[in-house]
């Protein structure tokens, strides 16, 4: 399971489509002790919500009524599946992002698969060791990726990116190819169900994206036969063997570990490009950004690509913004908690970058990505290209419940510096420039090209 999928579960897990987080839903009747533990977990989750939710309009009676709607059902739940269903119904009732329950064994398997993939920097292994590792991978559920990124465009799964030197690249997969089947199975029915469930919701694209990656990726060392179409009469069928993600996973407490990818280059003599997959691993991301900026100082503009970036630490967003702003007292936005309001103040660096800034977004840009994009635009510092973001913008925390389940919950509302609510709405680009299959097949990235043109034009 890739870290994108983990992030997506955390963001949208409460919004109904969370089957990937429910692998351990079981119908087995629980012992009295386990049922009591589940009740204790419900109480812990409820108390956490009650103590942290920022809704100042809800009356005490309304909160009590809500509790009474669910507590008896938890007490009666004889199976883990029943308990989880009730708890998820509770958090779904808020219709807000960043509410998620990951069952304890799924959470443990996520951590274990990342731990197994975190093989360290010793590259000198013998062939026998590598073979043994590959043989073991399937048993351990080693985290694996195909190396391709996809988006669902007009109901079709389209390859939008292929990592160099990845398994997908080595089998010749190209951007713009449509994924028809994986091991003979189509995703059409699932995509239809998702589209129906999330119709008109900004998280639709993120949820489709997650489903598509779930379908394609697999444990490292395992192989999948994938059939593609390239809009010609030629279909391509390749066998992709999943590999471990590169790099060292980022760990932050009990938060599921994640691999943060960073890409930086000059795409033309006057345009710098910086892309990163999460607002996590702050030391590495901030140092990489500072170094990239140094190399882009003479550029007319820079493009910051947060497409597919599921968010992370809001302070990383303000930190990067600090390199792009000269003004004190600029804020990206405001977090509204139960008791107070906290402004996300940008601390300008002494030598900020003063050229043009373009931010690329899409439907899988979420949370801190949205705060970042909207915030920079609101202070007049960036122009946004791409397509609408996921509208999943609530500051959140996490904890383990008594039964070991991982509980992710929002503790504050968020409004932009102009007072706009982003949750459930998303950030709209200044220039709508989404991917299309035809453009991708022709080697064109619409948002990137639009941003580059804007920077290069006076």
């Amino acid at each position: 399971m890739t870290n994108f999928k983990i992030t997506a579960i955390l963001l949208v897990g409460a919004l109904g489509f969370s089957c990937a987080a429910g692998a351990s839903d079981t119908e087995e009747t629980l012992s009295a002790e386990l049922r009591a533990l589940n009740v204790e977990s419900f109480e812990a989750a409820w108390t956490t919500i009650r103590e942290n939710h920022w809704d100042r309009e809800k009356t005490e009676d309304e909160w009590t009524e809500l509790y009474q709607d669910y507590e008896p059902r938890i007490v009666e739940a004889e199976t883990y599946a029943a308990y989880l269903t009730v708890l998820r119904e509770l958090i779904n009732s808020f219709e807000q992002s960043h509410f998620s329950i990951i069952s304890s064994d799924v959470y443990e398997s996520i951590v274990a698969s990342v731990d197994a993939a975190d093989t360290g920097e010793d590259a000198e292994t013998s062939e026998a060791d590598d073979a043994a590792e590959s043989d073991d991978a399937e048993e351990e559920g080693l985290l694996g990726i195909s190396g391709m990124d996809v988006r669902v465009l007009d109901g079709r799964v389209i390859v939008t990116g292929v990592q160099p030197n990845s398994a997908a690249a080595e089998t010749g997969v190209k951007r713009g190819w449509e994924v028809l089947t994986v091991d003979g199975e189509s995703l059409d029915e699932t995509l239809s169900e998702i589209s129906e469930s999330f119709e008109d919701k900004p998280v639709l694209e993120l949820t489709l994206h997650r489903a598509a990656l779930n379908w394609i990726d697999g444990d490292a060392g395992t192989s999948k036969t994938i059939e593609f179409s390239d809009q010609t009469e030629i279909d391509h069928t390749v066998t992709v063997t999943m590999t471990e993600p590169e790099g060292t996973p980022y760990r932050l407490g009990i938060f599921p570990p994640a691999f943060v990818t960073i890409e930086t280059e000059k795409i033309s003599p006057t345009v710098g490009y910086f892309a990163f997959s999460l607002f996590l691993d702050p030391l590495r991301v901030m140092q990489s950004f500072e170094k990239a900026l140094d190399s882009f100082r003479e550029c007319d503009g820079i493009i910051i690509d947060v497409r597919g970036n599921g968010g992370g630490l809001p302070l990383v967003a303000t930190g990067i913004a600090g390199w792009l702003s000269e003004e004190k007292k600029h804020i990206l936005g405001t977090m509204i908690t139960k008791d107070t309001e906290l402004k996300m103040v940008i601390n300008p660096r002494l030598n900020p970058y003063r050229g043009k800034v373009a931010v690329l977004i899409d439907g899988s840009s979420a949370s801190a990505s949205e705060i970042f994009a909207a915030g920079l635009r609101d202070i007049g510092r960036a122009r946004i290209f791409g397509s609408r973001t996921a509208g999943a913008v609530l500051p959140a925390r996490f904890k383990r419940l008594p039964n070991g389940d991982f509980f992710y919950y929002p503790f504050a509302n968020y409004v932009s510096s102009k007072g706009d609510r982003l949750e459930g709405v998303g950030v709209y680009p200044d220039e709508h420039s989404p991917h299309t299959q035809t453009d991708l097949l022709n080697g064109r990235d619409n948002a990137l090209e639009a941003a580059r043109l804007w920077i290069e034009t006076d």
Partner: protein
Amino acid sequence: MNAKNFFMMVAMLALTLGAAQAQAAPTGDEIVQRSIEASGGEAAQNAVKTWYSEAEMEIVGMGLTGTIQAWQSRPNKSYTLMKLPGIGEIIQCSDGTNVWEVNPMTGPRLYEGKEKEFMLFSSRFDASSVEEFFDEVVNEGEEDIDGEACYKVRMKSPAVGDMITWFSKDSGLGRRTEMTMESQMGTITVQMDMLEYTEANGLKLPKKILQTTMGQKISMVFTKYDGNAEIPADRFEPTADIKALLENAEKE
């Protein structure tokens, strides 16, 4: 934070609690004075010119643990270094005149306004600071804190806001402190429960503290208090980044 993530700056108040107890106010004298005596007495407090302390911290429930090291020197110099795996090192420093922070995410910054005033206050461990900052000390009556009978004492300050301390009726020591502080992000109320005390240099000092800020609990366990420790000469000197910010601020 984080929040962040959801992630907030931890208010480095624990290290000033010893100072707070020494800052007896004339109003509510009996309670506060008793607290001073219970914690070792004014003479013992005045005998300490510097402090070095270490603590282990945990952001409760999130599995985030880290360490804190703090250096203090009279009258109001303090340097706190917090190390959080996955976040990095966060430094907060007062040289008695300026207050700054270096954060791996947001970079170096100078504190200003009420936030600066508060941190200058928090950095003091001189008894005279009570008279300087608090206009009035009022015993607001008795309250139980987790079953422990306490006096609730409010110290009123127009400069840094009110600080409420609940002093144990039994031991005289501070059991809980609550204050509302101005941070760069906004107004934050911080509650600190002193759950356990230890002794160093003839003084009773908080060993275990549970801080609650915006619903998030942070546990701090002090593993070392070294009174009259030798402080490195340049401990409170601004870094190059901070010096540059100070120079820039002077030009503005």
